């Protein structure tokens, strides 16, 4: 046993003599000041967010993680392809890191791009235990830039993660302060008529569902690189610079719609992988996703980075400016969206109907007026006063949202909003081939009880998903809930099916909107045991989680060799 460890170490040394890096991270109790409130939390090297880890593709990294807490901890390297023992999920990859103990992670870096790391223990991540990873590629990148910034977002809440979980269990709408009120009822009656509004409320009430159920946890302050809106994180530039912004959404629960008024953004990477460049005015970043964009600033003005939460209950703000202290206008939050019957469709088709005795005629009637309402709302949001009523059909459709969904995003300036459908791989990592089988995963839950599950079964009651090494599995996600779920598979790439065959992009998080079906394929090329879960912290902890077991294949030492093949493919 000892001998083999020695061999591995020696081999590692020989391989990495020229290209090895050692990093030390301490896990500490820290104070987090958002500008709105001060809160004790957990951080790395004495701060939250932790340091930006800068690796090189091909590097053999050694990371010593010292736990200075009085509880167990762990670090998961989100999006990194590595041997499963290094993946940092307590109970799956390793037992975790005890208080006072130092755990040494060792793995080769076989990819490039923007990633992040966070604790996978309890609610340490929402409490502040996260940081960024930037990996410099071996070869040239297909785009150029003069400077770069990590823009790491989070939704810092004044309550601790444990408290939030407990409150949600006590009352699922504990944090929802966007519920429809008596005032809304009368305002809507004025527009659509009393009976129609009453009927609408009865419909939703009959199902005990809320249109305003978009963000479970409101009351947060959006942070950029640890700075609240008032503290205004600022990245400086020189006139004419191309700036690469590495957006990382490290939120516990919050999707952000990001724009930089006055600047067009060119999306060049999604989840660390190069994509064919897309110019956009705005994009939505799911929880745990990353997007790299390049902006070209030709003047000496300041520009606001404005990240509104998807449900418009909060925002993060930063600035790009020629010098610190300069600011630009901060836009107002747009009106909060409401879910529509379209977002409910998944829930109703599968069992939801059993509980309410709803009749279908009513349904059709409601459906209609509801979508009308939604279209109107989109109009006002876009500021297109000239767009007449009944032109709802001409609104841009995004195949990754249910038709008529209240969550369908639009750019605030009426321009281009990034869709998953726009993402095409720059340089496919895998050969395109037929999947060997399909696995259907229904995303399920009980909103009222705040229980979340897959195929109706919570993690604690579920068997692992068993995959065979070497197969290519097609996952079919069917979202039967009214929430959006960012599904994260550890250890292997998620190839998002956007209908582009070999150009389908590689991701590590696949966001699945309410009442939609989304497919991803995975080349099962990493032996061992992996986590797979919704990346909304309180959904994962409530049961929307699975262990994935990859059977067969080489042992992990050989797997490292396999991964360096990939590295060859990429360059």
């Amino acid at each position, binding site marked *: 046993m000892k001998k083999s460890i020695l061999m591995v170490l020696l081999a590692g040394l020989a391989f990495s003599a020229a290209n090895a890096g050692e990093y030390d991270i301490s896990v500490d109790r820290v104070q987090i000041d958002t500008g709105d409130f001060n809160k004790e939390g957990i951080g790395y090297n004495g701060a939250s967010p932790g340091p930006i880890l800068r690796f090189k593709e091909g590097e053999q990294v050694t990371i010593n993680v010292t736990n200075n807490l009085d509880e167990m901890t762990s670090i998961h390297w989100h999006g990194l392809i590595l041997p499963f023992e290094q993946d940092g999920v307590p109970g799956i990859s390793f037992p975790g890191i005890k208080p006072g103990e130092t755990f040494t992670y060792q793995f080769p870096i076989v990819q490039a791009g923007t990633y992040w790391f966070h604790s996978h223990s309890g609610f340490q991540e929402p409490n502040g235990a996260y940081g960024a990873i930037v990996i410099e590629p071996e070869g040239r990148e297909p785009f150029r830039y003069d400077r770069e910034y990590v823009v790491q977002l989070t939704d810092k809440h004044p309550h601790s993660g*444990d408290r939030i979980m407990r409150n949600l269990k006590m009352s699922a709408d504990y944090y929802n302060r966007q519920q429809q009120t008596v005032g809304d009822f009368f305002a809507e009656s004025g527009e659509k008529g009393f009976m129609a509004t009453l009927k609408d409320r009865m419909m939703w009430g009959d199902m005990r569902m809320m249109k305003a159920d978009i963000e479970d946890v409101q009351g947060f302050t959006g942070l950029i690189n640890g700075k609240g809106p008032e503290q205004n994180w600022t990245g400086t530039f020189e006139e004419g610079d191309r700036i690469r912004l590495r957006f990382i959404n490290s939120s516990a629960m919050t999707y952000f719609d990001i724009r930089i008024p006055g600047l067009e953004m060119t999306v060049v990477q999604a989840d660390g992988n190069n994509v064919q460049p897309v110019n956009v005015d705005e994009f939505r970043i799911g929880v745990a996703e990353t997007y790299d964009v390049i902006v070209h600033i030709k003047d000496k003005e300041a520009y606001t980075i404005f990240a509104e939460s998807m449900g418009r209950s909060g925002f993060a703000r930063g600035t790009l400016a020629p010098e610190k202290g300069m600011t630009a206008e901060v836009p107002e939050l747009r009106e909060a969206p409401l879910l529509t019957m379209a977002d409910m469709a998944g829930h109703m088709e599968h069992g939801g109907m059993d*509980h309410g005795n709803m009749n279908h005629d009513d349904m059709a009637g409601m459906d209609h007026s509801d979508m009308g309402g939604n279209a109107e709302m989109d109009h006002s949001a876009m500021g297109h006063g000239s767009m007449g009523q009944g032109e709802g059909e001409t609104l841009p459709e995004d195949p990754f949202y249910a038709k008529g969904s209240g969550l369908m995003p639009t750019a605030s300036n009426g321009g281009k909003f990034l869709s998953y459908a726009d993402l095409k791989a720059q340089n496919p990592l895998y050969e395109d081939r037929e999947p060997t089988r399909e696995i259907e995963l229904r995303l399920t839950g009980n909103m009222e009880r705040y229980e979340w599950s897959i195929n109706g079964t919570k993690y604690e009651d579920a068997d692992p998903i068993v995959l065979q090494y070497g197969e290519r599995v097609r996952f079919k996600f069917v979202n039967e809930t009214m929430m959006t779920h960012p599904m994260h598979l550890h250890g292997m790439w998620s190839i998002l099916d956007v209908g582009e065959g070999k150009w389908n992009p590689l991701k590590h998080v696949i966001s699945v909107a309410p009442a939609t079906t989304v497919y991803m394929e995975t080349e099962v090329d990493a032996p061992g045991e992996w986590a797979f879960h919704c990346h909304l912290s309180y959904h994962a902890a409530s049961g929307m989680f699975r262990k994935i077991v990859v059977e067969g294949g080489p042992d992990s030492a050989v797997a490292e060799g396999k991964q360096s093949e990939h590295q060859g493919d990429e360059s």
Partner: protein
Amino acid sequence: MNHLAVSMCGLSLAVAALANPAVAQEDPAKKTQTAKTFWGVSAEKFEYRYSDSDEELAVVEGDAYYGTDELKFRWLFEGEWEEAHNAWETLENQFVAQTPVDDFWDAKAGVRIDTPEGPDRVYGVLGLTGLAPYWFEVDTNLYVSDEGDASVDFEAEYELLVTNFWIMSASFESLVAFSEDREIGVGKGLNSTEVGLRLSYDLIDRSFAPYLGVVHERKYGDTADLARDSGGSTEDWFAVVGARLSF
């Protein structure tokens, strides 16, 4: 002894519900990656009542729970302290096990121990609590006392959001007894109703929400006669001031 059998039966059902999922517990991550047990303490009513007949009452209705999605243990407390007599007019402690029976409904089973001023009673409890369509919170229980008397209570509450912080809540409570228990002033048939309207403001999250309100209590039939005989009132209007608490 009837009530004991009933509640024990309910409890063992609930315990079986908890034991079932534990079958495939070999994966240690099921412990490290899930939040399993929860607790909460709240008081739906924590108030002072002033009646139109100059009666003053301090009223507390609250509960504390500990448990999982599948099984919760809940202690429910209800007390009415009468200022004039310096005595507990009502003092109830319920200890129940609670388990889901549907997406929106939980069944409860346990015991209720009443120790107010005057004779004590112990009851077996079987109950149903949950959310009815159109957002009515409903709680209903069947009680069988150690004297062999059975009764049913029914409570419903509706919260109207004036804004997202100003909440008007309407509540209705009633008690029906299947047999008479003169000692504690319970007549056969509909005993009493209580209707309340409270306007609250969520001052600190949902932890502390002070309110003002009005409550109407009425006794009926034999129960009203029993109340009259002992010199009590059969109908009262109260102005109430208090707070909803939740921790």
